[in-house]
């Protein structure tokens, strides 16, 4: 029993609540938001040390015995994800200072960000499938508020669709939970992992597994459920977009990862093959979008979809290399997507448009920006020694060891398309004839650029120092591959 694992959930919640009391005090809003995000990150670090030394942490709320109360579980995977999401939120808060606009800052922007953080960290930590639904709703409520924040016309229009899609997927979530409860009689994930292998009717369980895949697929934007993502994500301003792109779809990916390794393992031949096929189709669909658009935001948005496919393909292989690769790639993708959105955001501010055709020649005036963009772009495509490489290598290796070797070939081939799609931004925006840029104060440029370049540096470090992080990654993979570790930690308290 340790309450430590709840700190990354409670801290942003309390800070967000305090921030709601005085929305107009700009200085206090900024400082308290950044302190909240930073202290969440620090709590995550303590938790990481604890999990590393003592193994999986679990606490069942309200002192109920384990399968009856709501369990919160923190294994290596969830700690790593909590840490990366806290880190990204911290950077987004700092990046927002000069990009989001004072009017938005004074109307509950920072509380919404911190509520989102509460939901995301909660979803990563919970050990109960219905509680997962609750935390997903918390983060969705915050995301509704953020996507429409400021109330511009495109935002209003797109948020209606975003809201509608998510309401439908939430209703499906409740329905899927209902079916699962009627078949197994429990909703505690560890207890499910014990009960599901004892049930002989695998047919109905397979149906439920696919229902959950649809539910989480809506959040994770897998093929063919990604249709809502490009439009909705295009509407809000860049810091919110970075937050969404880095965190929201990843919650869906994490949920698929958790359920498909912990308890929906009764019919791997069907469910996991389906997951692999869908993952590959997701990658292909994302590639088409990433090449088709001349809008910098859209290109990176479609790259989110590609990454979701790559990660899920690794999960579907259910072998050590595949799972470890997925975990590594998941963390890499959270960091690199935030960094890329930051960079693209600066480019868009400088040109005053997101249309690539109206850009050019930025490398002459902002060389450091150009080269850090190139580094981030190479990192996304997985060029060694940058951070995309180790994860992709392991996923491809997992594919060759597993049943769907053709998937690995697709991933390798599409890496080139990813590279092309992001380098296209470099070629159009940074090379070529200089186009007049919007004059920008040096100080506000550096306010945007500093968090960006630090984040890019972190991704580089994550790639070059991959050897350093591998023990954590394989620790996380071990728990996913041996559910008994997870089950013992929860049920034998």
């Amino acid at each position, binding site marked *: 029993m340790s*309450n430590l694992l709840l700190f990354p959930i409670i801290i942003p919640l309390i800070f967000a609540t305090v921030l*709601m009391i005085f929305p107009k005090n700009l200085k206090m809003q900024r400082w308290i938001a950044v302190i909240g995000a930073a202290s969440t990150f620090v709590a995550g670090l303590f938790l990481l040390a604890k999990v590393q030394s003592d193994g999986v942490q679990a606490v069942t*709320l309200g*002192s109920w015995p384990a399968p009856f109360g709501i369990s919160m579980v923190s294994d290596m995977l969830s700690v790593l994800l909590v840490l990366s999401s806290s880190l990204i939120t911290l950077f987004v808060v700092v990046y927002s200072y000069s990009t989001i606009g004072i009017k938005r800052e004074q109307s509950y922007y920072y509380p919404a960000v911190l509520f989102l953080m509460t939901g995301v960290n909660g979803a990563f930590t919970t050990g109960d499938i219905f509680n997962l639904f609750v935390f997903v709703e918390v983060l969705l409520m915050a995301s509704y508020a953020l996507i429409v924040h400021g109330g511009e016309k495109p935002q209003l229009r797109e948020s209606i669709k975003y809201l509608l899609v998510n309401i439908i997927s939430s209703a499906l979530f409740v329905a899927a939970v209902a079916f699962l409860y009627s078949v197994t009689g429990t909703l505690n994930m560890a207890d499910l992992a014990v009960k599901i292998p004892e049930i002989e009717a695998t047919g109905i369980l397979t149906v439920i597994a696919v229902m959950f895949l649809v539910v989480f697929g809506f959040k994770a934007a897998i093929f063919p459920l990604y249709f809502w993502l490009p439009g909705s994500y295009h509407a809000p301003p860049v810091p919110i977009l970075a937050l969404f792109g880095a965190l929201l779809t990843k919650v869906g990916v994490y949920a698929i990862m958790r359920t498909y390794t912990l308890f929906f393992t009764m019919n791997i031949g069907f469910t996991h093959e389906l997951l692999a096929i869908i993952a590959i189709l997701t990658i292909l669909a994302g590639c088409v979008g990433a090449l088709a658009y001349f809008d910098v935001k859209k290109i990176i948005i479609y790259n989110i979809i590609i990454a979701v496919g790559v990660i899920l393909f690794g999960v579907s292989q259910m072998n050590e290399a595949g799972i470890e690769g997925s975990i590594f790639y998941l963390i890499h993708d959270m960091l690199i997507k935030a960094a890329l959105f930051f960079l693209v955001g600066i480019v868009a501010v400088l040109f005053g448009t997101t249309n690539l055709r109206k850009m050019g020649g930025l490398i002459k005036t902002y060389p450091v920006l150009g080269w850090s963009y190139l580094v981030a772009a190479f990192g996304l495509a997985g060029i060694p020694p940058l951070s995309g490489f180790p994860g992709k290598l392991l996923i491809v290796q997992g594919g060759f060891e597993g049943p769907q070797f053709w998937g690995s070939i697709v991933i390798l081939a599409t890496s080139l398309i990813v590279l092309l799609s992001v380098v296209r931004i470099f070629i159009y925006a940074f090379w070529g004839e200089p186009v007049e840029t919007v004059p920008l104060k040096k100080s506000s440029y550096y306010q945007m650029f500093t968090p960006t370049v630090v984040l890019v540096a972190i991704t580089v470090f994550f790639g070059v120092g991959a050897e350093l992080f591998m023990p954590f990654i394989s620790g996380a993979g071990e728990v996913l591959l041996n559910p008994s570790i997870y089950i013992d930690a929860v049920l034998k308290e």
Partner: protein
Amino acid sequence: MRTNDVMLQTATKVVTFIILLFAVHIFFAGHYTPGGGFVGGLLTTSAIVLLMLAFDMNTVRKILPINYVVMTAVGLLLAVGTAAASIVFDVPFFTHAYDYFDLPLLGETSLHSAMLFDAGVYLVVVGVTMTIIQTIGEDE
């Protein structure tokens, strides 16, 4: 557009207090039987909304000069704070405590930490619902 609804206004003056008292009853009934902070909060909101319908928004704002967003925040803090108090006592989050006390007038009463949590829920529900209604109702 505003008409002088004498009947509605006269009835409201009485009914509002009945609803408010009933809300308090439901809130405390939630201790052992159906009821609690959520329903109590909704009832209170309905009383305030009735006032708004019978009179108008500015009058109600004069009667109840409350910032509902702050009210939500205070409620959330109260609820989270009650739950988080268990951290201080080093028991799992949300663990509740209760005991029986002899109070003057009321006799033997059971006091429960969950009631504080429920009071937080009550404030949150009233705060959130009123914020929503004010947002829509502000521009007539």
